């Protein structure tokens, strides 16, 4: 089955700026989300997303549709994020602090109507953000790609340039690490509100009564 995005890339190679604009509009959100969930800082995420598209543009003449365009795109955004992480080893904590200052204004969250639930959700997001930020770089990227972008293990392996079994190991260890960090928030271990499947926040008592 032909890949329409690969055809657009071939048009970009021929100088079609409109084709490139279509690709940017289509993948801008997933690229931004990936970068944002990886680095935890809005400003840096925008910079990394632009860097990703710049690299795609620069590589248009070298692009060969041997795989789906999206697989290649995730490989590029992964490399951009990992490169940035290597350059800024000490910045992850600062980024989290910067994010916390602006989270209430900037983060998009349409799931909770009440202000109390919004506060609780932000508290949970802060904990989860810190837990993910504490992971080693490749575990963190594997989590972002699987949990949020829903890439298959094979696609993640391509993005991270490793084997499928290596991806399985990364995610196994990441989940174990997250379990340690988030243990208090697992059902029955704390009084903190929990996020259930539909994204709403319920009190611990209500969750227990539903499952009993």
């Amino acid at each position: 089955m032909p890949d329409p995005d690969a055809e657009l890339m071939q048009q970009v190679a021929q100088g079609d700026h409109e084709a490139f604009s279509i690709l940017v509009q289509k993948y801008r959100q997933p690229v931004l989300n990936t970068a944002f969930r990886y680095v935890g800082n809005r400003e840096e995420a925008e910079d990394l997303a632009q860097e990703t598209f710049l690299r795609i543009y620069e590589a248009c003449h070298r692009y060969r549709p041997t795989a789906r365009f999206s697989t290649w795109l995730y490989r590029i955004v992964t490399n951009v994020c990992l490169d940035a992480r290597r350059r800024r080893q000490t910045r992850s904590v600062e980024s989290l602090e910067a994010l916390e200052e602006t989270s209430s204004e900037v983060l998009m969250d349409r799931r909770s109507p009440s202000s109390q639930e919004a506060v609780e959700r932000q508290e949970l997001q802060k904990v989860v953000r810190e837990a993910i930020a504490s992971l080693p770089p490749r575990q963190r990227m594997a989590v972002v790609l699987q949990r949020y972008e829903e890439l298959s293990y094979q696609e993640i392996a391509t993005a991270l340039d490793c084997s499928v079994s290596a991806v399985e190991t990364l995610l196994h260890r990441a989940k174990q690490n997250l379990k340690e960090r988030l243990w208090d928030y697992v059902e029955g271990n704390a009084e903190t509100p929990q996020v259930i499947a539909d994204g709403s926040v319920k009190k611990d008592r209500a969750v227990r009564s539903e499952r009993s």
Partner: protein
Amino acid sequence: MRCQRVKRRLSAWLDGEVGERERPALEAHLQACADCAAEAEHLRQVWELAGALPEMEPGPGFEAALRARIQEREVRLARRPKWGPVAPRWAWAMGVGAALSLSLWLGLTLGRGLAQLPGTRDSARQAVLDSWSVTAFHELPPQSVGGAYARLVANGGGNER
């Protein structure tokens, strides 16, 4: 399946990455083993919690900033010399090779040319020998050894080596 193997595969099972050959045995074990079932449930909840991070809306100037970066790159490329700040490696290799070849050719050519000039070596050598063998002893008294030597050379002897 043993508990150790099941627990190692729980992450992949939760992600839907366990193959159809392995899945029935793994799920049967989870039905029978409360410890592994509890571990699976904990991982499931942790993985659900891990999905709490929100999306990020792009800023209003995202595409304009991207266009500006692309234009800046193209201007930079247009200003660069044909070979850029560093010539291609093959050009450097060719240049070094040409210089070495020229030097070798010049050395061989000039050397052969000098050797072929008639009496060049002998006449120059003789001039040096003459100056040393004759003028060095001009000032010495005739009865001295140097004076005797000078008389000997003047008479055609004293083959200097």
